[in-house]
């Protein structure tokens, strides 16, 4: 929200602090400030303050008056009751008889809560006065003409979007232009003010004149009844449209306007009436001629919202903020916030209010915010009595049952709620719906009343003889024959602040919202950092993270550097609906491809590249954490060098993590018979860390250090080039018996199509000292087996 400092100042008699200081106050207590920019006009200088109004305050603060109210709260300066404009005061409006009437019909009450219309005849459309143009220009708006500018000004002043139609361009039915607020028909096209075609569907709300569409409600005006320099007679609109509908329409047709932005954030319908007053005055100020006539206001407002009541206790403040704020401070803050409050004993308030409702009609479709206290159903009565006393309880009977604290009927006290199953064919509920969803009461519940004491119950009775709020003896009541339980909402001593919420503050509903108001105004900087007094338990270990960390450590130690690459790529199992680019349209299903690209990039700058990544890959059935490493070089590799390096890393992991990896002939990496990864002859290993983690590593246990000396023998075996080391080693082990303590390949070279493999074998016994001759015998057996295989011992 771009706010002009001068405009802001116009709401105050007293001088405001400098722009920077206003910005600082707002920053610390209300809103983030995006920027402050100096502005220069012929009339002097101004500052443009960009205030970041987030959705919670978009109801009441997307306007200069809204921000002024906030500045008033923070500075303690009084905000002027009436709009003050730089030139002469706003004119009074005298209603005259216009030639044309005005019919307004809301066909969609849910989507349009209120529509205020007014006809003004005989206006002169021209340029706006300087002060008005300057106001608009200061916040980046383009002045158009006095009528349109007045509408924009009032919106920026108080947050209510407005619109004006040229009455002579509207279809005349019965000598009076008619306005219908209805849904568009599928495929309707409206030409907008800026001459673009907007294609509409039957979900979109429009303003129509009985013949065609004049505007997309709350989003954009159409060209048909646009006000231009020849316009003489105008119809003014100040309406309230439902947020969800506006948002959907605006998104579907791709048009976002200052108006749609305000409506989709929801503004209170009370604004529409107030805004129309000022709109008309401004039109008269700037467009009046001696022929000007103003009609009566036509106000379609079916169900005005009731003042919302909420509340909190000092204990709530302490529980949420962790700061003990004394009552006089709280009360001073409530006063500064301009909230109407009263300190009440909750139960006294409930019990005082309850009996006054006797005789009010029972209404099965009662909505608290519109119908109370004129009519009730059973749970709207109890919910209303408590919310009027500053305690929010769930709206539904079943949820009230689970919300309250169980009380034995023997111990029932005034203020307790009594729940029953009436067995009268009503809607019996067994499970909680909104509060702690899914809790069960096996008896089922369909009725609730408030216990008044002395055996009396207050309830909104749907009984055919009553159909109203009544008081009767609990034991004689037809609807309470089968009592399921008694619940207590608050204790006798409970005291709290009962707060009436101003209509525009749609963000203040729950206790926490009020605590936030107190907290931010009190000043978060005053909250003292306090160690929590919770019991500390040793935190559980995240095994996968720990595992990934050890692998990272091993690989870094082994000379590999870590990279983080992008999760999106050009192929995979999951496709993005709105990718940044076609080559970023899929979620990767391996780390290999990205690593390959990173390798070739890095080879531009260095000879050898050893890199790895640990990251998520996205497979059809799940996300998995993978590790991949790559080894590559600009040099020409020596025979087997690359593979030998990769196997070396694999064996390092094997030794450190105590797994046994087997690389199969088709290059799969197996452990404990499970495939956990693969080796790629491009120089890459990729391993599924989650699969690996499911496998139990070998246990470490201490092997007694041999007390008897060991004997070492080497044997070199000449084999054809394509013989695998594994086969040769197996043959040695199969023929060397149980005294072998360890054996390994220590030398290898190729010559004339043959390969020489040198093995070292260590013999040791746990029981005795081995003799040379004993070991010689074993070695002879090995040699014989080698010869028998067709190989030779060198």
């Amino acid at each position, binding site marked *: 929200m771009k706010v002009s400092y001068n405009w802001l100042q116009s709401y105050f008699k007293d001088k405001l602090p400098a722009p920077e200081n206003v910005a600082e106050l707002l920053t610390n207590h209300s809103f983030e400030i995006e920027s402050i920019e100096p502005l220069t006009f012929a009339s002097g200088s101004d500052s443009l303050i960009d205030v970041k109004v987030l959705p919670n305050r978009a109801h009441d603060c997307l306007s200069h008056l809204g921000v002024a109210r906030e500045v008033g709260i923070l500075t303690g300066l009084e905000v002027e009751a009436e709009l003050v404009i730089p030139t002469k005061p706003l004119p009074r409006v005298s209603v005259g008889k216009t030639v044309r009437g005005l019919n307004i019909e809301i066909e969609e009450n849910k989507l349009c809560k209120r529509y205020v219309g007014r006809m003004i005849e005989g206006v002169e459309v021209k340029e706006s006065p300087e002060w008005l143009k300057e106001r608009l220009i200061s916040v980046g708006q383009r002045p158009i003409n006095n009528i349109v500018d007045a509408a924009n000004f009032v919106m920026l002043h108080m947050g209510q979007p407005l619109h004006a139609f040229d009455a002579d361009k509207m279809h005349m039915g019965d000598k009076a232009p008619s306005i219908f607020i209805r849904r568009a028909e599928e495929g309707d096209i409206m030409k907008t003010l800026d001459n673009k075609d907007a294609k509409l569907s039957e979900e979109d709300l429009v303003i129509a004149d009985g013949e065609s569409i004049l505007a997309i409600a709350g989003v954009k005006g159409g060209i048909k009844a646009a006000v231009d320099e020849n316009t003489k007679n105008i119809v003014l609109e100040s309406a309230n449209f439902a947020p969800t509908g506006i948002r959907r329409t605006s998104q579907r047709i791709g048009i976002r306007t200052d108006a749609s932005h305000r409506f989709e954030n929801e503004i209170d319908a009370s604004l529409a009436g107030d805004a129309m007053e000022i709109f008309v005055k401004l039109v008269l100020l700037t467009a009046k001629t001696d022929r000007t006539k103003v009609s009566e206001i036509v106000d379609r407002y079916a169900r005005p919202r009731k003042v919302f009541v909420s509340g909190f206790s000092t204990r709530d403040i302490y529980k949420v903020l962790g700061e003990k704020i004394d009552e006089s401070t709280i009360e001073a803050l409530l006063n500064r916030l301009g909230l109407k409050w009263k300190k009440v004993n909750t139960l006294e308030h409930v019990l005082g209010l309850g009996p006054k409702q006797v005789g009010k009609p029972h209404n099965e479709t009662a909505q608290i915010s519109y119908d109370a206290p004129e009519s009730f159903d059973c749970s709207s009565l109890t919910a209303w009595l408590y919310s009027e006393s500053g305690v929010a309880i769930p709206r539904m009977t079943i949820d009230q049952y689970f919300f309250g604290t169980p009380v034995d009927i023997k111990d029932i006290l005034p203020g307790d709620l009594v729940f029953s199953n009436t067995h009268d064919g009503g809607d019996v509920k067994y499970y909680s719906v909104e509060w702690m*969803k899914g809790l069960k009461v096996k008896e089922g519940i369909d009725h609730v009343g408030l216990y008044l004491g002395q055996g009396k119950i207050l309830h909104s009775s749907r009984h055919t003889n009553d159909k109203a709020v009544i008081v009767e003896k609990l034991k004689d009541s037809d609807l309470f024959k089968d009592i399921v339980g008694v619940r207590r909402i608050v204790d006798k001593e409970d005291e709290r602040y009962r707060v009436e919420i101003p209509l525009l503050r749609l963000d203040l509903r729950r206790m926490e919202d009020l605590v*936030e108001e107190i907290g931010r105004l009190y000043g978060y900087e005053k*909250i003292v950092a306090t160690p929590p007094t919770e019991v500390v338990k040793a935190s559980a270990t995240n095994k996968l993270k720990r595992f990934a960390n050890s692998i990272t450590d091993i690989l870094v130690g082994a000379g590999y550097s870590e990279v983080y*690459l992008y999760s999106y790529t050009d192929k995979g199992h*999951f496709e*993005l609906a709105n990718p940044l680019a076609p080559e970023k349209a899929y979620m990767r299903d391996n780390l290999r491809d990205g690593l390959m690209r990173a390798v070739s990039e*890095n080879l531009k700058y260095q000879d050898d590249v050893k890199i790895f990544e640990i990251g998520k890959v996205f497979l059809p059935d799940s996300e998995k954490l993978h590790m991949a490493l790559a080894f590559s070089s600009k040099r020409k590799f020596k025979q087997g060098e690359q593979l030998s390096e990769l196997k070396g890393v694999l064996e390092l992991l094997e030794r450190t993590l105590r797994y046994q990896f087997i690389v199969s002939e088709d290059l799969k990496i197996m452990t404990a018979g499970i495939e956990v990864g693969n080796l790629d002859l491009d120089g890459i290993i990729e391993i599924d860390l989650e699969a690996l983690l499911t496998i139990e590593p070998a246990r470490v246990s201490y092997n007694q250090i041999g007390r008897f000396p060991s004997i070492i023998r080497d044997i070199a075996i000449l084999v054809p080039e394509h013989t695998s080391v594994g086969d040769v080693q197996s043959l040695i082990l199969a023929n060397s018996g149980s005294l072998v303590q360890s054996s390994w390949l220590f030398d290898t070279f190729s010559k004339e199509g043959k390969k020489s493999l040198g093995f070292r074998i260590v013999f040791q016994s746990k029981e005795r000292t081995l003799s040379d001759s004993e070991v010689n015998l074993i070695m002879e057996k090995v040699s014989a087996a080698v010869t028998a295989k067709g190989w030779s011992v060198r």
Partner: protein
Amino acid sequence: MSNANNFIDTTAPGRKIDRGHYHPLTLVIRDIADAFSSLGFEIADGPEIETEYYNFDALNVPKDHPARDMWDTFWLKEDGSGVKKLLRTHTSPVQIRYMETHEPPIRIVVPGRSFRYEATDATHEAQFHQFEGLMIGETVSLASMKYILQEFFSKLFQNETKIRMRPSYFPFVEPGVEIDCSCFKCAGKGCNICKNVGWIEIMGAGMVHPKVLEGVNIDPRKWKGFAFGGGIDRVAMLKYGIDDIRLLFNGDLRLVNQF
């Protein structure tokens, strides 16, 4: 000291023993995890492809609510399951997943990758890393959050750090605040890191919204909690003076090899 027979050249280089390098984000994530582990927080994680429910609805960001605009979202193409999927726009869904499967008291920290649908430049990336924290207990308040975060930042920056809370709004907390920490370099005096204001904007936070708790069947009258979310990439960039976020993800070893 030396003579011809036992000349020792201590200036001659040793045998070159290669080692690789940690990515700076790993270093920061480890510091964050260590600091929170020492405060009794468990490291948790969750999926990066999320459902609309966990990323938004369960966090009190209903469909068609303007608050949705606070997160530019990568959506996945419909897969016929009827469940709308997306790339998580924050690590906050892990709060919900964890609360669904664990009873309070709860202390978790979630370092992880998140995504926002936005054009990239030196300070904006569509892919980034966040650390989410959640603490739920019977005596947890905004004052305890201030304490825990001050302890955390002091440990992370190895310097006595103060935090400042400013009013803000995130649908899943109430009250909601922005957290600034005193500059780790100049301790609040003003320097190039903090752009001479002495404070660094570092995370969003607040008291867990009662609707969020109710949604996972935790009674908000008994249990209170705080939650916070900060940028890991941002911390790494500030700490190491990295001026372009894209360098973190292009795999260039000329960056990584400096760590």
